[in-house]
């Protein structure tokens, strides 16, 4: 992780309200960025000489949603999606996690995928990783050059890593359940 609170303070000073949270004492320290500022912040993290996060390890999405109502009352969080970007700096040998919080559905309309800007212009790794996240978790990456499914067939219905996903009853005449 970049050294201490000074890193976070300078980031906060530079981007103000776009940095919406942090946990620098976690196992993998993370900062939270507003969706609108994601590309700008990522560009800075990559190019700033003292940081140089030039390597994107992984993009993933976690669905915080408990379908069971009884359990949902005990979870302690509101349903939401969390985009997680794991960054690494080859020159400085430090890592950082960037998180973006998203609603489960855009404007709370079930079935409308939430949107986040693509970072494939910052790191090319993001191209396929975002396609996978779109495919399995159902996030629309605005500005992505080729947002198609990658692991599931192109005509698959639904996004399997959503917690409320239900396997389609059949696929091209093949019974699934």
């Amino acid at each position, binding site marked *: 992780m970049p050294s201490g609170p000074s890193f976070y303070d300078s980031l906060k000073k530079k981007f103000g309200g776009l940095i919406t949270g942090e946990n620098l004492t976690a196992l993998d320290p993370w900062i939270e960025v507003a969706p609108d500022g994601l590309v700008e912040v990522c560009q800075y993290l990559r190019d700033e000489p003292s940081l140089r996060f*030039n390597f994107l390890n*992984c993009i*993933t999405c976690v669905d915080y949603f408990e379908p069971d109502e009884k359990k949902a009352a005990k979870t302690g969080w509101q349903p939401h999606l969390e985009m*997680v970007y794991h960054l690494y700096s080859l020159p400085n040998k430090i890592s950082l996690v960037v998180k973006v919080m998203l609603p489960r559905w855009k404007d709370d309309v079930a079935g409308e995928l939430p949107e986040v800007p693509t970072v494939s212009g910052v790191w*090319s790794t993001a191209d*396929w990783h975002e396609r996978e996240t779109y495919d399995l978790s159902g996030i629309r990456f605005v500005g992505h050059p080729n947002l198609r*499914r*990658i*692991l599931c067939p192109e005509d698959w219905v639904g996004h399997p890593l959503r917690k409320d996903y239900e396997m389609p009853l059949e696929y091209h005449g093949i019974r699934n359940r």
Partner: protein
Amino acid sequence: MSIEVDDPRIIEFDVRTDEMLVNMGPQHPSTHGVLRLVLRTDGEIVSETTPHLGYLHRCAEKIGENLTPRQFIPYTDRMDYLAGMNMNLGWALTVEKLMKLEIPEKAKHLRVIIAELNRVASHLVGMGAYGLDLGTFSPFLYAFREREKILDLFEMVCGARLTYSYLTVGGATHDLPQGWLQKCEKFLKDFEPVIAECHALLTTNSIFIKRTAGIGVMSAEMAIDYGCTGPVLRGSGVDHDLRRDGEERYTEMYDGYAFEVIVEKDGHYPRDHQYPAVPREAILGDCWHRFYVRMLEVVQAIDLLRQAFDRYSTAKGPHSLSLKLGEKLPKGEAYLETEAPRGQMGFYIVSDGTSIPWRVRARSSCFCNLSVTHELCRGVLIADVPAIVGSLDIVMGEIDR
């Protein structure tokens, strides 16, 4: 001399080439699993390559959300099935990171032995299969003959030859059997001369050099931009190996081991005077360099193995922590990458405090390595496509998960 309209030479100069889509796969023998490449070609020249994946998608991440970490170990075997031990290790370390477990000394050295031995086996397949990609069959036989012996050693250790589930959370399922180290040492002694044979068969083979040197050149910038790792990244001259640069939880396994990262510096690889020189035609970052890095890593793994033997035999303590099968996970999340034979394999685990993870994610190295193909295969000959894809040494099981 005048040329008549019906002169046959006119036809020869007037062959029009149309753009054509050529479908390579999904079961092309040289694509390392079930990969389908759609090539847009003009004559022999490929202008665009589109990989289609997902044929081996087995929903590993979704399955991980329904099992305890110990139960998920067999599923990690089936990711990179040529390096099952390394996959086990990556997942086990990630869970240990989340649970903040301290692993006994003996287990650490045992893990180094097993992981490096699997690296040798994996690179042998990589080498042999690459020969197949380029149309030569004999290196494959040499490589598999040796790999077979490693599989025998693994069978002695855990009973399985491919899907081991041997390294697990807290250490390993069993200690190494009596007399195993001697057998392994004997294998290494017999194996070392074979490396020279492999070099003679491929590395210095003039046809092999013609097919690989200067083909599919990937710059260091491109490799980093696309998140390439492992021999692919080092083949482009980037000095990065997680066994040295990774997280402490992983690098402490290799603490005190003498080893150099296999990467070219000033036209030389570490200790390359013992091995064939880099041919003049080769350019840093081409298929030949990626292949050569793998070959040198085999030698390095043998060296590490010998060092680990000594440490393992003098280490005290148990080979594993005793943990319950359904041990409760602390609330939180952890991400860890390890240096698997094909690159950095990362696992991400999110827990809500129960014994079953809330979310499991596997970051595949081959997935990123494969994503450069459209850049590398632009403007090359059709025959070079298997050479380039083969040099990335992908395993589809890991890409599709």
